[in-house]
């Protein structure tokens, strides 16, 4: 990491992972608890985001509550075809994240669609384009989702 966080940065990252005020001047209202002013809070969040220490700042939406579908999917891709299959999978806009993982099921990705019925269609397209089975792991129960990062 190319940046050393000072105590105030750390307090912001740890203390502002939720609860950003829904008020007319939220930065001014949030800044008080960090002992800084509105302008400084804006500048620090902006700096943390520019340095990629934050992936985002704002509302985190729950895709499923928006009426769409979201699922974790996995494929068992032969090593020789890995790059080609990754490119085919990633070419779908509905694929939000995709990770190579060390396992027989070596490609794991998240598919999010705006209409629930689109999800199966996307998985079928990927099966058809690659000739490889796509295993679908839709959530049955959510026990926690969040980033309890302490820096």
């Amino acid at each position, binding site marked *: 990491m190319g940046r050393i966080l000072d105590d105030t940065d750390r307090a912001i990252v740890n203390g502002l992972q939720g609860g*950003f005020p829904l008020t007319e001047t939220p*930065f001014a209202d949030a800044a008080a608890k960090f002992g800084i002013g509105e302008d400084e809070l804006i500048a620090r969040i902006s700096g943390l985001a520019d340095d990629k220490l934050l*992936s985002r700042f704002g509302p985190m939406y729950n895709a499923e509550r928006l009426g769409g579908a979201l699922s974790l999917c996995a494929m068992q891709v032969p090593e020789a075809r890995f790059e080609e299959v990754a490119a085919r999978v990633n070419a779908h806009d509905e694929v939000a994240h995709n990770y190579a993982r060390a396992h027989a099921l070596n490609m794991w990705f998240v598919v999010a669609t705006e209409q629930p019925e689109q999800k199966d269609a996307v998985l079928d397209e990927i099966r058809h384009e690659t000739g490889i089975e796509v295993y679908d792991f*839709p959530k049955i129960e959510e026990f926690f989702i969040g980033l309890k990062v302490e820096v």
Partner: protein
Amino acid sequence: MNQSVPAPRFSAPDAIDRRIIAATQTGLPLVARPYDAIGEEIGIGGAEVIARLKKMLECGIIRRIGVVPNHYALGLTANGMSVWDVEDEHIAKLGRRVGALDFVSHCYQRPRHLPLWPYNLFAMVHGTSQAEVDDKVAAIAKLLAGAVRGHDVLVSTRILKKTGLRIAA
């Protein structure tokens, strides 16, 4: 703060909500009055933006509002997707306990795909080193002892794609 709660009075987002979502899904404007700025962009008042965000937060369309740390850049470069074959009758109780651990960022019950995939509990574990991840997985194993038939840890070797979720207005 981070705990997801059952949604009260869920109502589907309407057209104006969806425009607010489209305008804010990549982030809030970094200006003194961000909700006014969003309102201006979509042609409503800042107070209405606030009221609608508040409602979406209350009913769970928005999980939370704030900074979303980049695990990787913050030094949590090691992670493992730990997966567990937990007896079905115990998964509700044990899933909640695993999800409450502070080093677990996502915790879900998902379907098995037998015989290839016997695991039904997924818990994403983060750490500053692989050894730290291993220690944390061992802590989960201890917590699940007696109710788990097997587990594995899938280490990510490469990010192939990472984009936010996109919602059209």
